[in-house]
């Protein structure tokens, strides 16, 4: 197991290197940079040419992209993510607390998604073909089809403007977490619900379930103690993908709700062409995604003794 983990960790290095390389290629194809974005639109850019050149030189933006890439990889290897051209502050100061906020939002959304997805999935499987099944699956379909952006604004209108239960402006506290976590969680609950339903239906029809039912065990015992743990394995398989979806979804949701995460910053940084921030966010997100998948693989082996890592 230790050797497996070490090998998987070692494999993340070429993955991250590749991601960085592609990011730099994209950057090279974009015909502008943060310095120009800062100055463009101040009508006197002719007079500003000297300052533009000085800032470009300071941040190595006057060098070819492959040279910048080499310098950047060297800096990252030393744990230095660079300085934002726009704010002139270390990137780590810009994204550190935001990374934690994104993780909080992702976890909260995952909890919502699991609670809603599992309970509706189990209910629809248990009462398969009844109105409960129809309603639960209908809501699931709505969740899959609804754009996060639109759903978020609807929730703001309903809970904040109409009912006045929650503030519109996000102070970054637990109250500000509720609506974005609900939006993201309810949308991601849909696939969990459908997969739970399918695997529960399969498990509930197996012989061992019939056997324990025949023994006269209570239904709650049959469903939660015997059928559910087996059905959960398939949820665990897609958990990595789901968390990836949550991390990606957070980018949009953070903008709508003003949740100060890395997604909200990434969207802005792309507009500012502040590539030092964009690169750092891509790097941090990719690392997180790779690590989460590693943890899930290990969990999978632990949950199902038939699977061997190696």
């Amino acid at each position, binding site marked *: 197991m230790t050797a497996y983990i070490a090998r998987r960790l070692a494999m993340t290095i070429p993955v991250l290197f590749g991601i960085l390389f592609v990011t730099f290629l994209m950057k090279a194809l*974009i*015909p*502008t940079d943060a310095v*120009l*974005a*800062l*100055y*463009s*639109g*101040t*009508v*006197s*850019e*002719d*007079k*500003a040419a*000297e*300052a*533009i050149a*000085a*800032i470009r030189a*300071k941040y190595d933006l006057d060098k070819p992209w492959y040279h910048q890439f080499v310098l950047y990889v060297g800096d990252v290897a030393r*744990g*230095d993510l660079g300085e*934002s051209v*726009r*704010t*002139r*502050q*270390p990137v*780590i*100061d*810009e994204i*550190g*607390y*935001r*990374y*934690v*906020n994104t993780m909080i939002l992702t976890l909260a959304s995952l909890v919502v998604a699991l609670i809603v997805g599992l309970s509706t999935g189990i209910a629809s499987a248990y009462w398969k073909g009844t109105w409960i099944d129809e309603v639960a699956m209908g809501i699931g379909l709505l969740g899959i089809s609804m754009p996060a952006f639109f759903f978020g*604004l609807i929730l*703001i*209108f309903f809970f904040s*403007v109409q009912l006045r239960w929650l*503030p*519109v*402006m*996000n*102070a*970054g*506290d637990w109250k500000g977490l509720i609506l974005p976590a609900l939006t993201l969680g309810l949308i991601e609950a849909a696939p969990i619900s459908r997969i739970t339903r399918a695997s529960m239906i399969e498990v509930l029809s197996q012989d061992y379930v019939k056997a324990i039912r025949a023994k006269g065990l209570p239904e709650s015992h049959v469903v939660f103690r015997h059928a559910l743990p087996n059905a959960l394995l398939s949820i665990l398989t897609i958990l990595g993908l789901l968390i990836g979806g949550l991390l990606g979804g957070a980018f949009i949701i953070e*903008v*709508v*709700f*003003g949740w*100060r995460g890395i997604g*909200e*910053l990434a969207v*802005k940084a792309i*507009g*500012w062409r502040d590539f030092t921030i964009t690169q750092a966010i891509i790097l941090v997100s990719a690392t997180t995604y790779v690590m989460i998948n590693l943890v899930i693989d290990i969990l999978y082996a632990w949950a199902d003794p038939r699977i061997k890592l190696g």
Partner: protein
Amino acid sequence: MRRFVRPILMVPVFVAGITAALPAMAQTVNLRLGEDPESLYNVQTNSLTANGVINYVLERLVYIDQSGTPQPWLSSGWTVSDDQTQITFTLREGLTFTDGTPFDPAAVVAHFNTVLDPAVASPQLATQGPLTSVEATGPMTVVFTYSEPFAPAFNALSGVGAGINSPTAVAAAGSDYARMPVGTGAFIVEQWIPGTSITLVRNDDFHEQFRSDIQNPGPAHVERIVLNVITEEGVAQAALETGELSAAALQADAIAQFVDNPDFQTIINKSSGNLTFLEFNQQTAPFDDARVRMAIGHAIDRDAAVMAAWDGYAQAAFGPLSAAIPGYDQAVVDELGTPYDPEKALALFAEAGWTDSDGDGILDKDGAAASFTILSYAGFTSIDRTLQVIQANLADIGVPVDLQTSDWGAFYPSLLEDGWDMDLMRWTWDDADVLNQIYAGDGHRDKLTPNADIDNILNRCSTTMEPAARLSCVSDAQRALLENMTAVPILTNWEVVAVQSNISGYGFDHAGYLLATDIKVE
């Protein structure tokens, strides 16, 4: 790796800070910031967002009053040398920064020396024009020296970038100064939660008010101003409705909803200096021909654009300056402007050789049918709708145009390249020097045909310090630019702000900044 750890450990502190800092609502005004400013150190930024925040904290040597005339602020007066290349300011005595250190010539010199230092690469450097040095010449006098007379000097010195920081605070805070500027102003930065809000607290020791455009003679009426970062328009509007925001500027679509709502008053600032205008790539035919540019001018129905883009909260523009800028000459605009007249547009196109020779409804010349592109920036409904009106108007006279919009960061650099015909642009500025910035020489993107007559006039305007002579020069510049139809003016929009009805004294200065010390919460 230690750098990774620090910000993460700080999070509980942030969260605790947010909860502890929930201000007493009574004397707090909640306003909106569209995005986090990049820095609050005016040497490091020149963005509208940052300037709007820094303006609460830093004061300048001069301000521009509502009539557009420079007036003393932190200075008590000035003299201009005979050759007009030196301005000597006398500073007011007895003022202190909010960190307790004295406001003196050393502070003024320190600020401008930092701006002038090429190694600092300050975005403010360009705004100070030919300023070469700033020196203290007496206990309370400072001399600004320019390499040539600089007419917009007072305007430049009234800008937020010329706000005086406490040099002691700058030195003590290092790079953290960008998060907590210290000035002599009516407000002090109390807290900046990045990406969430900036809280300004009243400076209770504020000196007497030296500005005549502000009613309140002393410290601000309100205790706190919280500037909340809200990116989304829809969210800002919802926050206004729930009362979480005390006031916010409205997008055209939202105005109707607030105008008749008794919980709000709408304040319309008609004196903002801005212009939406159509520019040409004069390096390519047929836009190298002034008749074609004039034809386009006559083809566009500005009133339709005002209604479509701004719901009527804008003014049709026919001159290269917006009407609120000192020096705007209505007589020249009336004489040389290009009002909506499709017949005249067609006649001018015909003069330039463009007619519908094959009867297909599209103008052509030498066998080539008209087909042009207009570039602009995405994300603004008002720009999209103005473009659509222009497209429809031009189609009406047989000139099909293709609209291409992209985000600002992609759009603006594309103008430096070839391969486009027209672009729709907008500037905001509060001084006639904007003409110089855009149109002098081959223009700010090298896409104008240099015109010696226009250059001479603009150069004269830029170096004429005497106010009456300068205004006369600005009038000449408008005449020359309209005769050449260097760009087609479309409209000047008004700023419409919805303010909760329990708030009074909400108003703006000449540059469009909020006069915050006058605000009262009932």
